[in-house]
Each structure stands twice: as C-alpha cells, then as structure tokens.
C-alpha cells in the first residue's frame, strides 16, 4: 500500500517538475522573439521622436544629410545602399551560383567535403579584415587603373568586397536548394538522353529556383546589413553616385560613422537611420522566408 502511494507521489512530482521544466524551456524558446520585440521597441523609442518631429518624408526623400544643422535626408544613403547591394549581387550571384552548382552537381563527394567547409570559412573571416584587404589592395588598384579617375574609394570597391562577403551565404543556401531536388529528376533527365549540363540547366535549376532566389535575397540582406567593410572602402561621401567609381555612403555606414559623437537630435537621427535599415532587413528576411516556404510546396 505504502509502495503504491509513494510511487504515485514520486510520479506526481516528476510530472509536476516536468511541467515546470517545459514552461522554462518555452520561456527560453520565446527569448529570440522577445529579443526581436525588444530591439524593435528600443530602436523605435530612440528614433521615432525625430521622425515624427521632422516628418518621415524629410528622412526618406531628403537629399541633404547634415544633422548638426537639422538636415536629415537619407535618400543619398538609401541609393548608396541600393547601388552597393546591386553591385554585390552582380559579383556574388554568378560566382556563387557557379560554385554551388559545382559543389552540388559536379564535384565528387570527397572534393565536396573539403571545399564546402573552406567556403564556409569565408563566412567566418571578420568583416574588418575584408575591409582592410579592400583598403590595402582594391582601393589603390581602382584609383590607379580607373580610366575615369576617382579616388578609389568607391561604390565599385564596396560592391566587389561585399560580393565576396555574400558568396558563402549564396553558395550555402543554393547548395541546400540544389541538394533538395530529388535524384529522380536527374535520373529521369539523363535517362531521356540529356547531358549533365542540360540536366542541370533544364531540370535541376528550375526545380531549385525558389531556394536559389531565397539564397540571393538572403545574400542581399547580408550585403544591406554590412557595416565595417563598407565604411573602409566606399568613401562615405553623402552624394548620389554619378558613376560606379564615385564614393558613396550606405545606411549602415551612416550610423557607424557618426554614432560615437552624436547626441540629442543627431543621435536620434542615427536611430532613425536604424529604423529604415531594420525595416529593410526584416522585409528582405520575410520575403526570403516566404520564397523558401513555397519551395517546400513546389517539389513533391
């Protein structure tokens, strides 16, 4: 009798603490979401006042940025970010896609186990090191070779460096997308007489299209969010770039350049820049997620 009662009590306590543990774990799981909420709250809290005071149009459409004199135009920086990101994709997508195809379709397994970690190692290199290499090698190169002149610190330099930096992202996610395409697709295509190249371009790539698009969008997100490397090579001039050789400033650089000094309305304006950046990266992230989600539906 006592045994049964004691066992029941023991099981009851176990179940109780199990429930408590589950609650704790749930709290932990919510930590990422709550952090996101917290970040949103604080960025808005610091940046919104000046946006409301000046009106969002002054930020999004204004062409002059001189916060110490009350000018808060972010448009040159928005354009700068757009130009540099587009340039990064021009560099990164062809190289990245080719690399992904090579590793997923063409390379023997042993080469893959060697090369894939190496490419992921590219992602581990600090962005300041990339920027440094850009400063020491790329910028002087552009300055001395560019037929149109230009100081070397330019949208071109930033695009190239960023393109290299997003390679691991694009390659990694594209490889996942390619590997998710069922073997039967390839086998069927080859059985019908197609060459490997025809199989890749005609069957595998279209099937993996959504995943690859997601990879590109996530690469975009990475480029949009990069700060240090861009500050070091883009020149940071607050202007609309007249050519790829002109210096530009991105939204991220805008924040980092002036953050150490700023106070009052100037600091708020930088947080406002952060709001714009935040919205852009959330948007890119959710688009990528939606594209990826539809991939899961597409391949049966």
């Amino acid at each position, binding site marked *: 009798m006592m045994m049964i009662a004691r066992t029941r009590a023991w099981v009851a306590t176990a179940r109780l603490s199990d429930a408590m543990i589950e609650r704790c*774990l749930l709290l932990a*799981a919510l930590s990422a979401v709550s952090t996101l909420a917290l970040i949103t709250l604080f960025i808005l809290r610091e940046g919104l006042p000046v946006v409301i005071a000046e009106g969002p149009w002054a930020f999004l459409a204004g062409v002059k940025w001189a916060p110490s004199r009350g000018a808060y135009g972010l448009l040159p920086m928005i354009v700068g970010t757009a130009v540099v990101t587009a340039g990064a994709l021009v560099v990164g997508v062809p190289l990245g896609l080719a*690399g992904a195809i090579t590793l997923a379709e063409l390379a023997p397994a042993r080469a893959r186990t060697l090369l894939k970690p190496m490419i992921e190692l590219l992602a581990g290199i600090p962005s300041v090191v990339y920027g*440094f290499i850009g400063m020491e090698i790329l910028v002087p190169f552009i300055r001395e070779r560019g037929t149109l002149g230009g100081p070397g610190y330019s949208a071109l330099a930033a695009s190239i460096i960023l393109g290299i930096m997003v390679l691991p992202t694009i390659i990694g996610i594209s490889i996942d997308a390619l590997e998710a395409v069922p073997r039967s697709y390839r086998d069927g295509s080859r059985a019908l007489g197609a060459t490997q190249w025809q199989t890749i371009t005609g069957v595998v790539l279209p099937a993996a299209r959504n995943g690859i698009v997601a990879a590109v969008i996530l690469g975009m997100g990475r480029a949009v969010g990069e700060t240090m490397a861009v500050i070091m090579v883009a020149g940071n001039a607050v202007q609309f770039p007249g050519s790829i050789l002109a210096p530009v400033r991105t939204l991220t650089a805008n924040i980092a350049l002036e953050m150490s000094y700023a106070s009052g309305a100037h600091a708020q304006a930088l947080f406002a820049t952060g709001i714009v950046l935040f919205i852009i990266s959330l948007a890119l*992230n959710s688009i990528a997620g939606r594209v990826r989600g539809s991939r899961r539906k597409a391949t049966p």
Partner: protein
Amino acid sequence: MWVMWASTAVTVGLLLFIIGFILKRGAHVLSWEFLFTNPRQSGALGGILPTVVSTIWVSAAAVLVAAPLGVSAAIYLAEYTKESRLTRIIRSGTEALAGIPSIIFGLFGFAFFVTTLGLGWSILSGGLTLGLMILPTVIRTSEEALRAVPRYYRDVAQSLGASKWQSIRSVILPAAAPGVMTGVVLGIGRAISETAAVIFTAGVALRMPLSPFDSARTMSVHFYTLTMEGISDDMAYGTASVLVVTILLINIGAYSLMNRLTRRYR
C-alpha cells in the same frame, strides 16, 4: 562546364589569398610577447594583451547568455512541441533575428544595456549584446543536433520509465552534445569577429579590464582602430593574423565536432 570549376576555384582562391595575405604580413609580428605585452602609444608598439583578455571576457559573457537560452530553446522546439502556430512564430522570430544587421544590435545594445540599464560601456554590455546576436545560430544548430538523435533513443529511455526531462537530460542531450557544442563554438567564432556591435557597447578603452563593468577593446575593434587611424601597419597585420588564426582554429574545431556527431550515427 569549366566555367563552373573556374568560378569555384576563384572562390576558394579568394579565401586562400585573404588568409595568406594577412598571415604573410603579420606572421613576423606574432610572438608570445605580442600576445602577452601591453600596448604602448595607442597600440603602435608593444603587444595586444588587453585586447586578448577583453575578447575572452566578452566572448565568455556572450556564451553564458546564448548557450543556456539557445540550447533550452532548441530542446523545446525539438522535443516538446509539434509544428503549431506558436512554433512558427518562434521560428520566424529566430530567423528574423538572425538577419538583423550587426549595427542594429550595436544601436540596440547602446540604447538598452549601456544607457537604459545603466551598464555603461562595459564587457557586460558587449557580452549581452553579442549573446543575443549569436542566439539564433545556437538555436538553429542545437535543434538540428537534437533532431539528429535517432527516435529509438527516446523510445528506449521512456520505456525504461524515465520522465521526459530525465530522458532528455541523461540520454538525448549527451547524444546531441557534439552538434550542440558545434553551434556554441560557431557562435563564439561569430562573437570574436564581430566589430560594429561591440564598439558601441563595450567601448574602446585600451586598458586591461579589471571587472565586467569595465570598458574593453576586443581584438577586432583594436584591429579596426589600428587600421582606420593608420597607427601601425605591422600591429594591424599582427592583430589580424591572431584573429584569422583563432577563427581558423575555431572552425576546424567545429568541423571535427560535427564529424564526431556524424560518425556516431553511421
């Protein structure tokens, strides 16, 4: 076809070039003195000891935040729930957090930890901010590791009478340990190479930090400062070499852990 191979060669070649370039110019600076001496003249002479110590402290603080939270979250996602609206919210939140630019984390850390919580520019502020930044990485990798543990582990544990938590704690978690540790190690690697978030939370003081409330300059911030101020090319290359070698070791460590995991389930 060769275009594909050539592109891959270019990509790999870039990696090797970057590492080689840094190490070639920085290797001669590396020495035990370099690592264990204090810097003089804002870092133009001497070594980088305070930055090494600061990096260790800040990374440790980040891991102390990210590891418990991240692994617990992963356990919840992997073991306790089926796919539902709640898990979808959690997952999208984690994914979104992973995509937030590091400068936004810097702004947030400055507004929240440094200013509102009053921690000031400190190792604590920097570590907490970085911890939140690497949280998604830890969650993602840990969840994968937990899901990789075969079903029958759980079935056997529960048929022996263990409660859910007991089976997780004593059986599943140890089995998933290599994968979980990989996630933590990769998170450390990310924390070490991070600059934008750290500058605005941990500050740039070049002194040896004596407490978690002290401002501290990590190696990557020191490297950035040396470079941008043009203080010393040699010291910059040397610091970069330490950073690159550390990242290399961390990545190699992570991969050998991953291999141990896959080997266990072959």
